């Protein structure tokens, strides 16, 4: 199936919209694993996990390893990086904003404080 770049990215974002699939991807980031191994930490049946794996596979985020018995799944890190660098960049811009906001809020809190202190007396 021939898909455009935009469609591929759509599939990646859709695949990552689900918390279970994100957890599977996070698990695979530390090494390949069989379906059974992947199912273990989740309160889910193997068929349920397999469904999630199929979505991830279709998005090109994971692939199957060499071992035909275990059929381990592994992360296609390059593919994931393509999608996540957008989110990462976006996140960074906003984190920079929010860190400035943190500093501003500290200032605003400090401006409010003297009013309260003046009432009760600052020193004991």
């Amino acid at each position, binding site marked *: 199936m021939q898909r455009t770049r*935009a469609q591929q*990215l*759509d599939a990646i*974002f*859709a695949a*990552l*919209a689900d*918390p279970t699939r*994100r*957890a599977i*991807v*996070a698990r695979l*980031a530390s090494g390949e694993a069989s379906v059974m191994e992947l199912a273990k930490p989740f309160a889910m049946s193997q068929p349920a996990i397999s469904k999630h794996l199929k979505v991830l596979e279709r998005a090109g985020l994971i692939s199957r390893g060499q071992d035909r018995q275990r059929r381990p799944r592994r992360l296609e*890190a390059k593919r*994931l*990086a393509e999608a*996540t*660098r*957008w*989110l*990462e*960049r*976006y*996140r*960074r*811009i*906003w*984190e*920079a*904003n*929010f860190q*400035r*906001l*943190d*500093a*501003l*809020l*500290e200032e*605003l*809190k400090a401006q*409010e404080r003297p009013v309260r202190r003046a009432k009760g007396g600052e020193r004991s």
Partner: protein
Amino acid sequence: MNEAGTAKASATQGGATVKNANPFKVTTPTGKEIRMTRVFDAPRHLVVDAFSKPDLLKKWLLGPPGWEMVVCNVATKPGERYRYEWRNTETGYQFGTGGVAREISPGRIVHTEVMDGQAGESLVTTDFVEEGGKTTVTMTLLFESREIRDMALKSGMEHGVAASYNRLEELLVSQQV
């Protein structure tokens, strides 16, 4: 109070210990949305002020380094228009964004947004929930289509420094809801 419960759950979320920084998550809950959640160490009224008063907005809503906010006209009630503009201090390049306010209340600001040079309008809902002197801000950007959402995500790439790939794990942790 249900909301307090969710705020607590998201604050302790992430598995590994995240010290120093307040938890910050960027997720794509559906194909048409971007959602950001961040906790601030301040009561709600101060956070809402910082999101709605021009002299305060100009101090933090700046994006990547090298940009200053040169226009900040806010909407004070539903139906009014707002307009923000930024200027790059080096290149002089200027761009802006604006829209119409739909709802302005102590716990929620809703407005439409159209960025200069970009197709499509988004609906931005910002919720402010205070618990124990801290305020959780959740911004949800709803786009008309997945394509426009992805374009908005991509537009961040065009400004500023190059993206790094080695913080993937950190991102994944932050994405787990």
